[in-house]
């Protein structure tokens, strides 16, 4: 059995900032769960610090941020906070309403992918699984690197 087969991704699905429209995050969380992933789901309106804490404690592979009302504008701050907490190996994806010009800014800040409306759940879960594997491998490298 390969690593890929045995592997169960751990995914945090959450919302930061001010908006609470959670239809999308609930549907994606359900789809990840149904695709066999370990899903950590939070209510909306999390602070960046709270997301970093949950990501650390739950040792997730992927952080999924749903943004329907401009909260993606503070995702670059989240990326910095994750790196500062030593969680730079985690992959961050954003889903929701993100204008083209701001998508570029998110990708520059380290976001792995932005999912726009219209993607199927199969497409989204396949990408998340692939990113989780990347994160797990990057995390393993990081661990080896720090071993004396």
């Amino acid at each position: 059995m390969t690593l890929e087969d045995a592997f169960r991704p751990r995914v945090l699905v959450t919302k930061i900032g001010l908006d609470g429209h959670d239809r999308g995050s609930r549907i994606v969380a359900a789809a990840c769960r149904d695709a066999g992933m370990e899903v950590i789901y939070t209510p909306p309106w999390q602070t960046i610090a709270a997301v970093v804490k949950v990501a650390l404690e739950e040792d997730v592979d992927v952080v999924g941020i749903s943004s329907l009302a401009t909260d993606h504008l503070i995702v670059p701050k989240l990326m910095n906070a994750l790196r500062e907490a030593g969680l730079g190996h985690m992959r961050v994806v954003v889903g929701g309403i993100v204008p083209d010009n701001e998508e570029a800014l998110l990708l520059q800040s380290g976001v792995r992918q932005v999912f726009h409306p219209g993607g199927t759940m199969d497409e989204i879960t396949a990408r998340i699984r692939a990113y989780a594997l990347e994160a797990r491998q990057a995390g393993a490298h990081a661990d080896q690197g720090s071993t004396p």
Partner: protein
Amino acid sequence: MNKPVESPFAAGAADAKARWEREYRESMVTERATENVSGIPVHPLYGPDDWSAYGQADPLGFPGQPDYTRGIYATMHRGRTWTQRQLIGLGTPADYNERLLGIMDRGATAVSLIPCNSVYRGYDMDSVEPELLGTCGVVVNNADHMDRCLEGVDLNRISCALNDPSPFTLLAFMLVTAEGRGVDWKNVTGTSNQSDYLSHHVANHMFYRLSLPGARRVLLDHIAFCNEKVPRWNPMSVVGQHMQQAGATPAEAMAFTLATAVQNAEDCIARGMEPDQFLPRFTFFFDISLSFFEEVAKFRAGRRIWARLARERLGAKKEAAWRFKFHAQTSGVDLTRQQPLNNIARVAVQAMAGIFGGLQSLHTDAYDEAFQVPSEAGARIAVATQNILREEAHLTDVIDPLGGSFYVEALTDAMEEKILAIMKTVEDAGGMYKAVESGLVQRMIGASALRLQHRVDSGEQTIVGVNAYRADDDAATRPAVERPDPAKMQAHLDAFSAWKARRSAAAVNAALDALSRAAEDPNANVFAAVVDGARAGLSNEEICARLRRDLGFGQPLAFV
């Protein structure tokens, strides 16, 4: 010799029907079962047999007459057009005012005000991430900001809809503004568009402020206050829109909304209020999805259910209390980021469904709402769409033009039955308050949202440009998004901070204590204290934070 051609009509109705059924069966290559979003089967043809009241002397009644299937007024849109109320809100109060006056010049007949999400959540601008300020609505934190928003708007004359959840700080700021301009509160008209706290707890969205019991009390105080002191104000807008946007089917959205209205009305009655006094000031707010006939039937069915509920269950005696007045907004969820200009066609169809459904007020979405707060160009097309439907296409020349259609009447009956069945589920759970408290309604809506997603993912439900008829990348048709000017927002923030610092700490504390005393005294009116607080110079966050402390700030239900 010249034998006449045999008429297909001569054989009699039964034979004709049998012949059609045979021809239909033979000609249809693949027949598939079809049902609408609410789960009602849709047949290929409707006739007299499908409409239970067909053949009765007066199967539908007349517009303006109970049970109002054909509309709540005798003249409907032929007599008076609906209110063109475009939602706007962005940036600083000065930005908002500029956009508002522009849109009123182009035909909008009423004000709507959408505040920044920070305001909805009960915060001031100095305690949230600055990147988010004014990106989804206007940053209004005190009475001075409201005065600036409404500069040049005659509050004696123009109806203002405020997106203003409990504890109604925006209305408080507006009433203080009216006082300052010498406008009598008795002339102030409009609607508290987001007074329905139950819908906020169902669909989380951005409104979360007070706990369920706290919000319930403040709503009743607000209704009592407005009925007495601002009699032309509509303090209660029962909202089905959030629930349908969150995934409820049209029948569920109507059923939950009517159940909410019953809950709020019975709460008012328990407080000693008279249904004939408060019910005429109840309004409703709905989503209009693309499911055209289903939406028309939803509104027609809801209207007559409400007339009966108001009369029979709530005991209202005046017809004004039975009328189902509603604002509707075309559904943003139906709009697509892909090939966004297609959204103009979608919005036109949605708007038609609302018009044929008999709405009183309409917001048409801008085509670019699928990816941003509407641009000015997008908002202009949205307003023009309404004008085209009314004045070029003449949709309003005839009242209830779909009335008497076998399909529409059969569907109206079927939707009514479905809505009543869902209302029964809520009733069995102890009414809407209990059904929301327990999460029943949230679970039902979540399940419906998943079902709809599966229909889209499987291709059973076509979405042009998304799961069918896809085109190459069409980024060029999506305008670049503009965010509020950071320098202007910083100046707004600096002025606000200076204003806060200028105030007397003693006066602020006294105003906050007065708010607490009202919250602690069950016989006091908390909303009256909110207005006093606004007048004394309290900010949005100061009022909200104090009431959260005193009346509770429950956690939202969240589950997958």
